[in-house]
């Protein structure tokens, strides 16, 4: 049976993980490869590495990091951040990434999704969407949630699917960092309307939140950062818990 996926997300700046961790058994908690390998050993199903470096030099550092990740980690990983054009995608896939996630660049230039799908296949293209609930509905935002756009979540998600995205990574900005659970109503609507997998992001604070997003939110995968980095929810414990509820999980 196809398993629901648990995906830790690592923010990277200048080749180092940004958020602190309290893993005492790591030689170097700032090394994304070390941390990624630890998560892989703990049973993470995939990893996401988000480059939040702005500079050109930093981008080169990130590409070198992607090569090290590919050489050392034996589960699939997605990279995102700083992808503006097909050339960036090509560079990261050549370095060994399995998938790329595109966010702001795809909203500004939706054809980027078509180009990625056409050149490398839908399976490598993750459309990441940051949205916030407004009086008029769920509105998409750019640049990590600072700039509102004229696109609404559901119509943009449909368009991304039609253009060839292989997955949707939906982050609710209302839920992100609050640790009160995922945006399950919006997730369920996305999952029920679209025919590609949906990754839930933003809001994980307890094991029950993962249960809810899989059962009520119909999510195919759940992504989280701080609850894993700070050891608040150990992945093996989370997976045992979900498995005990008969949710299909890889143990």
């Amino acid at each position, binding site marked *: *049976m*196809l*398993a629901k*996926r648990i995906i830790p997300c690592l923010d990277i700046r200048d080749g180092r993980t940004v958020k602190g961790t309290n893993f005492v058994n790591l030689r170097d908690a700032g090394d994304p490869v070390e941390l990624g390998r630890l998560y*892989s050993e703990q049973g993470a*199903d995939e990893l996401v590495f988000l480059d939040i470096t702005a500079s050109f030099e930093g981008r080169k550092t990130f590409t070198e990091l992607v090569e090290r990740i*590919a*050489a*050392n980690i*034996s*589960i*699939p990983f997605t990279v995102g951040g700083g992808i503006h054009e097909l050339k960036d995608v090509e560079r990261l896939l050549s370095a*060994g990434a*399995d998938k790329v996630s595109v966010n702001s660049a795809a909203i500004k230039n939706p054809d980027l999704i078509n180009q990625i799908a056409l050149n*490398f*296949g*839908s*399976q*490598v293209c993750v459309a990441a969407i940051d949205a916030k609930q407004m009086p008029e509905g769920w509105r998409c935002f750019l640049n990590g949630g600072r700039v509102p756009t004229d696109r609404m979540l559901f119509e943009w998600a449909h368009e991304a699917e039609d253009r060839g995205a*292989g*997955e949707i990574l939906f982050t609710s900005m209302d839920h992100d960092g609050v640790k009160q659970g995922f945006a399950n109503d919006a997730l369920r609507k996305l999952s*029920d309307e679209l*025919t*590609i*997998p949906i990754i839930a992001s933003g809001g994980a604070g307890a094991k029950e939140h993962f249960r809810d997003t899989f059962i009520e939110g119909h999510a*195919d*995968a759940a992504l989280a950062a701080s609850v894993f980095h700070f050891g608040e929810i150990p992945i093996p414990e989370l997976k045992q818990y979900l498995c005990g509820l008969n949710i299909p999980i*890889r143990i």
Partner: protein
Amino acid sequence: MIGALTRLGVTPLLTDNEEELRRADKVIFPGVGEASTTMEYLRAHGLDRIIKDLKQPVLGICLGQQLMCSHSEEGDADCLGIFDVPVLKFQPQKHQDKVPHMGWNTIETTGDGIFKGFSKPEFVYFVHSFYVPVCQWTAARTEYILPFTASLHKDNFYATQFHPEKSGPTGERILKNFLDI
């Protein structure tokens, strides 16, 4: 793929050169791409004939497995025909049947060949929209929408629909078994 093989202590050579392919101890035929354009590429470089004639153990992965079959519905492509079985497109039966089949799924294996030592269902990583039906050469099967082939074996030819190089320790066991044949 190269990372996974390097971790297992072998030095892979990436090549489409006939001499190098014939001299290799083992040949891995991986692939992410589209069936008809890849077959055109193989024919243009004479690789279709070379791959079929190889005598050492050959492992096709993902699209590699599909291209070892007779025909693919992807781009209506005639393939290598090592396994006389067609490659079909998934037909979702209900909304939850999302295509591509993406993620970790369990396989049941014959327990020999590249699955030596496997006695219970194991999770491996899949990403694909086309599948090989269960047939006489099926060495591992899985189920998504319907039961289908996760791995094929005939003589010196081995193939997997899933990605052993992305399947954690289970995938490493499979690759190691292949290297040990």
